[in-house]
């Protein structure tokens, strides 16, 4: 499913369109009009008796009855004035604009080792398609191999320590790559959450408008107008894991646990994520108010599910980060003392048992 981004202006306009439709249907449809009249009268009573009104800030009009046409229009306009902001508040920058961040991370991973066999990106879920190393760089393992060949005749404690240092750096590079891929994966997940928020709020708006539009043709005794919004946000993280697996990443990249006891890759931590979940939310009713209530319920569900996905993202990142810090010394390798102490050593020291000499 391709992702279509809806910007802040589009969301604002969608909200305004729904607001205007809700007002016009209320004024045109008999049942909604009657319901609004009753609500206005009730709120006028609340206003007059100092109670909190259902429409925030409403006060009984100075002239005319609360439910006459002019005052009712003002009441309904006030009641639905907040709708555009409900949609505009979900505006986010286009997730696809962050693609260079992912490309950079995958290029770093490929610089350490090229074994990402992922195919090109072809769905709404991002999957790495940049598997080339950073320009002008050589692979870490290739360089280490070359250095070791040059050093093969050099022995002594410092020489041995230095070779060992090169080896552990090569191993550390694998862990650094795992951190890089986990960063990429968590970023993919965040961007997928953002895509689905954008998609779902648009879906809610479209279905709300459709339900309101259905009331325009409604006649007394007819069926209620009804639409269903399909919310996809609940499957955001699972979709990223699934996309990584099906894109050919396999165990080599996204789904692998690193070879350090107790340190799992983020993909492994998330592998128990709930499967793809879509929720259908009904938005409908015989009058405008239940449709707007349905819209609000759908928005609340979107917000609640978004919170759950965010929490899952945070929990996974926390676990991974804790393990990473626990294994810090395996990832950042300092040159051994036996080697660095030769920094200003004289020839006798260098050629001694503790130094570096030709075999």
């Amino acid at each position, binding site marked *: 499913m391709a992702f279509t981004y809806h910007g802040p202006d589009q969301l604002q306009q969608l909200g305004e369109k729904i607001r205007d439709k809700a007002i016009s249907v209320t004024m045109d449809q008999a049942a909604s009009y009657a319901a609004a009249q009753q609500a206005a009268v009730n709120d006028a009573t609340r206003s007059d008796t100092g109670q909190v009104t259902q429409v925030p800030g409403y006060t009984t009009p100075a002239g005319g009855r609360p439910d006459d046409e002019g005052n009712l229009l003002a009441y309904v306009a006030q009641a639905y004035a907040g709708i555009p902001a409900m949609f505009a*508040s*979900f*505006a*986010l*920058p*286009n997730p696809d*604009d*962050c693609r*260079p*961040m992912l490309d*950079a*991370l995958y290029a*770093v991973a490929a610089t*350490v080792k090229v074994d990402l066999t992922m195919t090109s990106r072809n769905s709404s879920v991002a999957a790495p398609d940049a598997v080339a190393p*950073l320009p*002008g*760089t*050589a692979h*870490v393992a*290739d*360089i*280490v191999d*070359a*250095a070791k*060949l*040059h*050093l093969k005749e*050099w022995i002594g404690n410092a020489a041995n320590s*230095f070779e060992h240092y090169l080896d552990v*750096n090569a191993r550390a590079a694998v862990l*650094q790559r795992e*951190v*890089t891929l986990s*960063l990429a994966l*968590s970023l993919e997940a*965040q961007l997928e959450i953002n895509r689905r928020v954008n998609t779902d709020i648009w879906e809610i708006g479209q279905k709300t408008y459709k339900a309101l539009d259905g009331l325009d043709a409604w006649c007394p005794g007819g069926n209620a107008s009804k639409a269903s919004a399909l919310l996809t946000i609940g499957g955001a993280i699972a979709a990223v894991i699934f996309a990584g697996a099906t894109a050919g990443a396999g165990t080599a990249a996204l789904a692998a646990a690193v070879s350090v006891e107790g340190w799992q890759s983020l993909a492994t931590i998330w592998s128990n994520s709930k499967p793809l979940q879509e929720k259908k939310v009904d938005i409908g009713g015989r009058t405008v108010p239940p449709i707007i209530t349905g819209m609000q319920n759908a928005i609340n569900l979107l917000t609640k599910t*978004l919170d759950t996905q*965010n*929490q899952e*993202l*945070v929990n996974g*990142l926390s676990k*991974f*980060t804790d393990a*990473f*810090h626990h294994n810090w010394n395996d*990832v950042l*390798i300092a*040159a051994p003392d036996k*080697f*660095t102490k*030769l*920094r*200003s050593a004289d*020839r006798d020291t*260098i*050629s001694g048992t503790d*130094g*570096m000499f*030709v075999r």
Partner: protein
Amino acid sequence: MEGWQFAAELSQLRVVSRVDLPALSHAYASMNQAVDRTAGQEGGAFAAPGGGVAPAHGLWSSLRDDLQNILGRTATNMLDAGVVLEHIVDTYAAADAAAASSLEAAWAGGQTPGLLEAEERFTREVLPPVVLKTDD
């Protein structure tokens, strides 16, 4: 081992100090910079509805900073190791005139003798500057 034979072995060390370790350092510095560049767009990636910031942002950027610093420090460590090797070569050469003469003759005019095929492709570009996050 003395003279030209020893010079050949010193030359091997010099290749490591002047070619391999700078190439490693270059790779790590490039990775450090690439990771650093992700900071420019993270505001957009971790924006939350209502103008807030996504809860994962702090953890993510902290992990990113850690990785960036590790890559940057590894780049610096590699250069540092190269300095030690260079000192070892110089110290041996200073005590063996024949070896020094042979070594410098082999490296004269910008030559780098004894390169492996793979090393011919290693970068000789100027090292990109390392960017470290200061709050690490």
